[in-house]
Every structure is written in C-alpha cells, then in structure tokens.
C-alpha cells in the first residue's frame, strides 16, 4: 500500500482512514475490494454495469467518505439463533448505511482482535454455562494471557440464553465483562435474552445502531441500498424462515401416537406423527420441533391451592383478560422453577431464607432442582393477588424435540420421539409439562401447536458420499431416524452407522424393526446396540465405540461426520472421552494430540452434538 502517496484523495478520506481500512488486507483481498466498491458505486448511481470486471477498474476512486468504521458482527451460535440475530443486525446496519462484516466466531482469527474498532457480539450460552462449540476457542483466547489490550475497541454484547438455567447468559456476560477488562468501551449495555429472544434482540439492535449512527457521522445515502458486505468465508444463505413461531404456531393434527416401549419397560417413550398438510411448514433432518404445551389440571390446582387463590378470578395478560386457571394452564410455566421467578417472588415475599438462597448459587441450584411453582408457594407463603402471581411467573415456554422424520420419507408429516418425564419429588408426583402433555393429554385427531426451530449445525453432510456415525441414547435416536430416512430417500452413497443405547433390549430398542429393515437392505452399514441393564455389568454406547475403535477411527479418517444426540451430562461428555480414547489408541497419539484431533473435528463441524 504505497501507491496512494500523492494521489488526490476525495474529501473526508485521508491516508489514516485508508490505512485503517486496508491495513490487514492481502493483495488479493485489496484487489477484490476495489472492484467490489466500484460495483457498489455503480449500482448506487446506475451509471455503470455491475458486471464490469473488477480488476479493470481497480484504480477507480472510492466514491464516498467512510466516517464509521466497519462494524464487525461476531456471532457464536449452537443452534443458529445467534447467527440469525447477527444476520438481522447486519441487514439493519446496512439499511442505515453502515458497513458490516458478519463473522462466525468459529472462523475468526484472534490476531485480528487488536485491530477491531467496532464490534457487536451475539453469543449464546449452553446448558450450565458453557459456550457454544463455535465460540469455545475465542472465549478461551479472551481469558488467556495472550489476549491483547483493546483500548481502541468499542463494542456491545447481545447474550442469548435460557432463564431456567442458573448460569443464565453466562457466556454473553463473560464476553461483555472481559472485553471491558481488556480496555474496550461499551457502546451500549449488554442485553440478556431468554428463550423468546426475538423482541429483546430487536430492541438491542435498534439501540446499538442508533448509538453508532448518532456518535459517528451518517454515511452517504448512496450506499443505503447496497447489500451487506461479508467476508468471503462468511455466512451462506439461510433457508427462508418459517412463518410459524411461538406466537403463531401451526396447529398440527395428531395422526398417530404410539408408546414405543414394550410391556414391563422402565421407560415410557412415545412416537408421535403430526399432520403438516396445508402448513407449508418445512424442516430438515436435525431440526427441532417446538411444541406449545398445556399444563396438567392437577398442577394448576396445586398452584391455586398453594397460592390460596380461587380459580375463577380474572387476570390480564397484555390486552387479554382471562380466568386465572386458564392463564396458569396455558400461559405460565408451572412445572419448572427458575431463578428469575424466585427473584421476582422474593421481592414480594420477604422470607429471609429465600433471600439467602438467592445470594448463594450453591444453595439455589439444589433448591430449584425438582421443585415447581407449587413448591415455592408452599415453602414460602405470601399473600399475592392473582394478577401479581401471573406477573411473577414466566411465560410458558415451548419445548423443542429433535425431529424424528424426513420430509422426503413422510411428506407433510413430522414425527417426534418423546420420553415422558415423571418422577416424585418433595412429596409430590411431578411430570414434565410437555412430555406428559403429549403422552397423556392429547390423542389422535387432537391438535397440537407447533413450530420449527431450525438447528443450523446439526445437519447431514452436504456431500451425500460422506459417511456418518450416529450415537444416540434413548430418545436421542430421534434425529438419526430422520437422518437415515433422508439419506435413504436421497440414495446417498455415504455409509450410515448407528450406535444406540437404552436400558433393555426386549422393551427399549426404539424403532427396532425399522433399523433391522435398513440393516437388511444395506442402508444401514453398521448397527451397534448397548442395553445397559441386560447384564450384570452396565454397558453403554461409549463401550461399543471403544470396542469398535479401529473401525470408528477408520471412518473418521475417511472423513466421516460424527453425531451425538441424547443426555448432555451422561452421554455428551462420555462420548467425547471415548472418542478421544479411540483416536489416541488407533491414531497412536498422545492424550493432548488426541484431544486436539477431537477438538478439530468439532471445529470443522464434523463432530456435532444435539445434547440436552
């Protein structure tokens, strides 16, 4: 970048700005960008064909001043929500004439961090406070000694999370606080979003862009209509979003509901088939279907009893007025007790012990576990009006289930595999709100409110020749039924290998006859099963993985994608450990190198998890 010396620069563009804009670019990138800007200019003025070869116009002058530095939008996504918001942010910014670059944390080169001027971070938190896989590395880097000071950086963080977890939005908080520690300055305060993040995200986007445009000079109108700039390696086109959402769910008729476990099983798993005819609803294998549940009557009664409120009383929810019992049954979370509810409730019910719980996470977590709203109201009685009660409780969230079918195999249908959750805790019979809603309270021909939650990453390989290894335990087999159905319909040449685990062979071999059929037809190359309680010693899928280490490693070396679905705590970690051991053993690697190998699989999105 020496040829600019002596060139007459347009007003507002000086050497420093140019240097800032182009400092990190390779020659190829420079060349590309010069053409790109010319194209943009031409499109804005309508004076030149956008098809003009970029190289031939490389020397054309930059058309406008660039008073606002390019905004780097950095997202860390697990299921695709953060990515969706990032995209939305980029569109809004472009609409305001701002320049943005959307980058996936997974692909972000940490050495660029020091050069960033304006950065907007959208990141989710997984489970008990973990970063999404794609954000792991950056998160780690920021907290390491190698993290640079960032006095030049201005930023804001949007955190996605789930309030039902104690470590709500922890990763967003980490980014926010750490960037500040490193000397960066907030443009606007972090916003923490619960599962229904859309409205809060929109507000944050508006607020942060407003701040940016008001602090920096507005960009020329010429670029307003231009598309968002994005790095070559960045985001690919997303499937058109479904019109259905929590607010506007599709009312799906139940076509079939089958208890999959044989008699005498310790498990209770249901196979549901829902009708999509007329919905236009689209999903892909790996996506989840969100179901809007209705709370069971006995629980509503328990809550009313514990709150000492009559069911007939009316309450306001937004502009709606409805009976308290209906509000509790259809609109409020009752079966899961979360920190936010306890916080709001504590403000109304002055119990010293409750305050103490809130100040001590170590105590709070065990308190929340297994308790529901009725327990809270019983343990810490308070005089609440019906209206205050519904305002204290959180909206009833939908529950997402991994889809168990392929649209290619079952056009206009969506299938789910649902494990009914029932247990006894603190003197009362407890039930999973949605699983027992599906198991007990709806029948064939009833209607269920649903919408699709796309899972960006838990997807089949683009290349149908790629082999896949699927590890599923219990209802975790659901997405793999969808995977295999899809690959069979597509005539995919890649081999399919399923490892499945559950307690007992005779009763819990979910979709047994289908797998047998696939195996017979050669559509499933390998099928390994682990039935933990069929013998004296417990055997799990991870044992099968190790028993077949040579073949597993062979498949991985051959480019196979590796999928895990099931319980996060019991399965996710065990499989990662087992796979690392497989790599160590078969690849002749040390423990660290094997861990790197597995980490790299994750980074390449060849090791994908759908754990819960």
């Amino acid at each position: 970048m020496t040829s600019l010396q002596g060139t007459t620069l347009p007003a507002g563009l000086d050497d420093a700005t140019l240097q800032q804009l182009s400092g990190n670019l390779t020659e190829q990138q420079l060349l590309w960008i010069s053409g790109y800007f010319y194209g943009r200019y031409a499109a804005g003025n309508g004076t030149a064909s956008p098809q003009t070869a970029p190289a031939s116009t490389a020397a054309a002058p930059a058309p406008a001043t660039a008073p606002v530095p390019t905004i780097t939008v950095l997202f860390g996504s697990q299921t695709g929500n953060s990515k969706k918001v990032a995209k939305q942010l980029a569109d809004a910014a472009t609409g305001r004439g701002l320049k943005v670059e959307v980058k996936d944390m997974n692909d972000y080169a940490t050495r660029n961090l020091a050069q960033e001027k304006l950065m907007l971070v959208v990141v989710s938190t997984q489970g008990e406070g973990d970063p999404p896989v794609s954000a792991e590395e950056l998160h780690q880097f920021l907290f390491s000694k190698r993290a640079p000071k960032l006095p030049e950086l201005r930023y804001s963080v949007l955190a996605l999370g789930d309030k039902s977890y104690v470590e709500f939005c922890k990763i967003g908080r980490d980014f926010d606080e750490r960037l500040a520690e490193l000397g960066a300055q907030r443009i606007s305060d972090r916003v923490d979003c619960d599962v229904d993040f859309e409205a809060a995200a929109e507000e944050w986007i508006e607020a942060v862009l407003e701040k940016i445009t008001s602090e920096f000079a507005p960009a020329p109108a010429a670029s307003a209509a231009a598309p968002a700039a994005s790095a070559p390696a960045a985001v690919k086109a997303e499937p058109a979003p479904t019109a259905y959402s929590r607010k506007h769910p599709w009312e799906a008729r139940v076509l079939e509901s089958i208890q999959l476990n044989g008699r005498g099983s310790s498990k209770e798993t249901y196979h549901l088939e829902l009708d999509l005819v007329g919905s236009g609803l689209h999903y892909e294998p790996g996506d989840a279907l969100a179901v809007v549940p209705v709370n069971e009557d006995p629980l509503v009664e328990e809550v009313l009893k514990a709150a000492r409120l009559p069911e007939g009383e009316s309450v306001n929810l937004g502009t709606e007025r409805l009976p308290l019992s209906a509000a509790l049954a259809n609109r409020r979370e009752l079966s899961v007790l979360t920190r936010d509810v306890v916080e709001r409730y504590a403000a109304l019910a002055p119990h010293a012990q409750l305050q103490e719980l809130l100040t001590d996470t170590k105590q709070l977590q065990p308190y929340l576990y297994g308790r529901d709203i009725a327990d809270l109201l019983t343990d810490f009685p308070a005089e609440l009006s019906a209206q205050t009660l519904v305002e204290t409780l959180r909206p009833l969230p939908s529950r997402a289930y991994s889809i168990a079918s392929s649209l290619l195999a079952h056009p206009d249908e969506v299938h789910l595999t649902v494990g009914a959750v029932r247990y006894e805790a603190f003197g009362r019979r407890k039930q999973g709100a949605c699983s027992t809603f599906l198991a007990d309270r709806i029948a064939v021909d009833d209607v269920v409110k649903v919408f699709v939650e796309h899972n960006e990453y838990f997807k089949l390989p683009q290349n149908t020749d790629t082999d896949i290894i699927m590890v599923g335990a219990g209802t975790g087999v659901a997405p793999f039924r969808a995977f295999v159905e899809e690959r069979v319909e597509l005539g995919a040449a890649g081999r399919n290998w399923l490892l499945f685990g559950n307690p007992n062979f005779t009763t819990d071999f979910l979709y047994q006859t289908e797998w047998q059929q696939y195996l017979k037809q050669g559509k499933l190359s390998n099928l390994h099963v682990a039935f933990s309680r069929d013998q004296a010693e417990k055997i799990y899928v991870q044992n099968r993985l190790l028993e077949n280490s040579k073949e597993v490693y062979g498949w991985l070396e051959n480019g196979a994608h590796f999928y895990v679905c099931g319980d996060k705590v019991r399965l996710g970690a065990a499989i990662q450990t087992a796979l690392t051991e497989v790599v160590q053993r078969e690849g002749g690697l040390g423990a660290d190198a094997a861990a790197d190998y597995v980490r790299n699989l994750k980074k390449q999105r060849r090791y994908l998890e759908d754990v819960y």
Partner: protein
Amino acid sequence: MRRSHPQYLLRHNLNMADTSSNPKLSEVEHIKTASNFLRGTIAESLENPITGAVAGDDTQLIKFHGFYQQTDRDLESERKRQKLEPLYSFMLRVRVPGGVVNAEQWLRMDELTVRYGNDTLKLTTRQSFQIHGVLKRDLQRTIQGFNEVLLDSIAGCGDVNRNVMCSANPHESGVHKQVHEVAAALSQHFTPRTTAYWDLWLNGQQAYSSALTTERQEEHTDHEPIYGSTYLPRKFKIALAVPPQNDTDIFANDIGLIAVEENGKLIGFNVAIGGGLGMTFGMPETYPRLADLIGFVPVEDTVDLCEKIVTIQRDWGNRENRKFSRLKYTIDRVGLDTFLTELRQRFGRDLTPARPYRFETSGDSFGWSAGDGTGKSHLTLFIEGGRVHDQPGFELKTALREIAEFHTGEFRLTGNQNLVLANIEKGHQARIQEILENRGVWTRTQEQTALRLHSLACTALNTCSLAFAEAERYLPHLLDRLDKVIQANGLSDAGILIRMTGCPNGCARPYLGEIGLIGRSPGRYNLYLGADHAGERMNKLYKEMVDEEAIIRELTPLLEAYAQQRQPAERFGDFVIRQGHVKATTHGLNFHA
C-alpha cells in the same frame, strides 16, 4: 428282499449325502445337510445383538439342541405397532429319560425358571421339563445351569429320538426299576453324537453331562453312527410301559415297549411300532395312528432291535414332504409285512409272538400309596396342565421347592403331566402333607373330580406357534363348567380321559382322549369321542367347530345318559360307542371314516 421295494423308497437312504442334487428334498433336509452336524450358523445367531431371534435356518437346527423359538403371540400386533420385533423367546425342553430326577435337579430347574424363564416349570406329556420364555442371550447360561446337575436338552426336539418315556408309578410293579434302566439305555444309545451341543452351549468343554459317554469323549471328529449326517426324516418317539399301567401311552409312539415279567423279573418286551398322533386338518391322507404289535423281544436284544427299526425309518422315511415322514406313514406305504421282512433281515433273527398283557388305564392314580415294604411311600400330585407355578393361595412351585430341600427320594414326572414324589421317607410324610396343605396345594391337586384329574392340555397359546386355539390356559375354565354337569350326575369319581390341544399335531394325545378337543380357530374345537381308557383305541370326530356353549350342550346329555345307563365298570369312551354315538376307530386308516 429289500431290492424288490419300489424305486422311490430307495431314494431315501442314508448315503444320500449330496442332497443339493436332489431338489425334491424338503427344505429342512437341505438345512440338515448343510449344518455340519447341527451347527449351522447358530453361533453367529447367538452373537447377533440386533434381534432376539436366530437366523431362519437355525430355527430348525436349534430343535435338535432341545429348544424352539417362540414369540408371545398375545403381544404380536401390539409390538408390531410399537416398531418392536415380536417378543422372541425360547422354550427349552430338558430330557428326563423315564421322567426321574432327584431333588437337586428339581431345585436347579426351579431356580433356572426364576433366573431365565417365566418362573413356571412345565411338566410335559413326554415326562420332560420345559422352561418357557428364555431369551437368546440367556440360552447358554440356562443350558449350563442344568448341565451342572447332569440334565441335558440335546434331542429334546428335532428329527431324532426324543425323550424316552417310561411308566412313572414305581409302586405298581417290582420290575419298574429294570424297565427304567432299559429306558435310560435307549435314551443314551440314541443320543446324537455330534459335539456341536458342547461347542455351542458348554464353551466347547466336554464336561460330564448325561448326554456324554466315555465312548464319545474319545471321538475327535463328528460322526453319527446311527443317524448319519442328515439324521432322521422326522421326530422319533419311544415309550415303555409296565402293565396294567399305560401311563406313557405307548401306542402313540414310533416304538412302544410293553414290559413282560416273569416271577417278578423283567424278561423282555412286547414291541409295537408305527404309532404317531399328528395330522393336518383338511388333509385326510394324514391321520393319527396307533402302533402295531409285532412281537416279543428279550431284554438284552431290545436296544439292538430298536436301533434296527430306527435305521429302517432313517433309510425309508419320506424326506420330501415332512407331513408324511413319520414311521407310521412309512409302514402304511410299504406295508407292515415288507417292513417286518426288512427288520428281520437287519435284526438277523425272528421276533417271537407277543406275550399276553393287559392295560387298564392310561391315567395316573393319585394320592399316597405304600412303597415296596421298605417303609417308604409315594405321593402322586395332580399338576393341572403340567404347569408348576405359584398363584395367590396356590403356591405349588414354592411348596415343591420346600419339599425338595429335604426330600431324599425322587421326583417322577408322569406321562400325564403329573408328578410323583417317590420313595418318601417315613419321617417326611407328615411334613410333606403339611407343606402341601399350608401352600394351598393339597386341595387343588387331590380334591378334584376324576374328570379333571384325568385331563391333559398342551401349551398352545400364547407361545406355541402352531396353535389355532387355546388349550392349557382354557381347559381349566371349561372343566369348571363340565364339573357342574359331572357333579350333578354323580360322576365325580368317574375317571374320564379328557384331552385338549390347540392344534391337530397331538402333543397332549387328544386322539386317545375319551373326550378329545382339538383347536380349529380361537374359541372353536373339533369334539372327538370314543377312545378307550387304556390308550388302545383312538376316538372319532363327533362334532366340528364347536364353541364352549356347544361343547357343554353336546356333552351334557351324553354324560347324563352315561350316569344312568352305563354298565358296571363301563368307561365313557366304551359307552358312547355301545350307544352308537360314534363308530369305533380300529386303525389310523379308518380314523377319518
């Protein structure tokens, strides 16, 4: 002269090793040929964790090892909907030559049904044990479990000689012990020699079991001196009886041996051949048949004679259509004379004429009986349907387990699915009586109408794949209703043989029932009448496709008439013939007439 036989007979000889060149052979023959002495792919089948079943061909071969693959037919459609394969399990048939086991063996069988079966022990109509509901993964452990107490299941089923039966009531005859020894010798002699049984189930170890002789331990390669590599064309059955008891129904067997004694000593047997009760509905060319008496054989020649009969059947039996493979069809096809000529040639001598004998009953007599003067006694218990199990208020299985803990005598399984506690020590009698009463067993096993005490039922639904209708699960209910008729007519002590099966294959020997009920479809049976009381005449079809109401409606007037018009000591089966309700069946060939 054998060469004078029609050509088609000669096709089925032992040396037809290359079965692949004979496309007419039945599928099972091909499977046997390719099985390498009954191995097939059983080892692979056992290791396949994806299914509870064994491979198709192996389902034939496992029979030779003593078990059948079954499914719970009650759950069939339910599991299909659940996307689960049928609930496969295995019925293991444990051989007990002559039905005699000791207390340790009884306890082990009891324990195995708890650990691997459905907690019931079935006493069969051939004096063997059946454990039901064993899962594939538990087969080896189960077989090892009874092998340790010297019981085995090889040849429990399959195209070989099955469990050898012998009169079970030890108090009836002083020669019983000697007859049992012959039964044991026959059982041993006809046990397959293949080492596949040890390889597959006992970790290849030729540990001692009742299925292993010293002679066999010395053999290094598989060789079947009697059967050859393709075994018999079909199952083969041998039974021995000590008159006047015909509790083993010897005429229903391929070979029936009637003990002949002289001065309290066993001298030999009257030999009957060609019995067999299976038939197929809608195929009148299939029929049940009683064995023909062919002469007398001295004790010492008995095993040899039986071997020669077996080898003729091996060479001449039909291997193309299994419906006509039993010895009875071989004999009727070539004619008894031709068969006997061949037998004489192979045996090398003539049989002398049969000695006089007299059978009185094929049923058991129940309750306590004195022993042979040693102070010991015997107790025969009625076991309904042969099923040893516990129910609330009727803890039969527990009671027998408690008795086995101290009983020093034997447990004898009868051919009528009942149980004799034999050689009970004097000091144990009161204790046994007390246990049976406390466990609610005494009234259920002893204080019943003679009709019920003479009832037999096969397993049928829900596990037998051949069953068209219920039997074991249903007969007690039908008897509740018939008992009312019996009691109303003062017939509570009239022993009438009533036998029910779920299909026409004959497991509970329904054709020898004075009242025979054979399942046609769920809830419907063919009603047969007119067998004698001693297993020497088969019954005849009286009414087709009758349901419960029709059974009661048909039998009530006959029983009423029997109560009023019977002659002294006249049996029900004889009465209905005398009254002309059915014609007497005099031979299998006129069973359908």
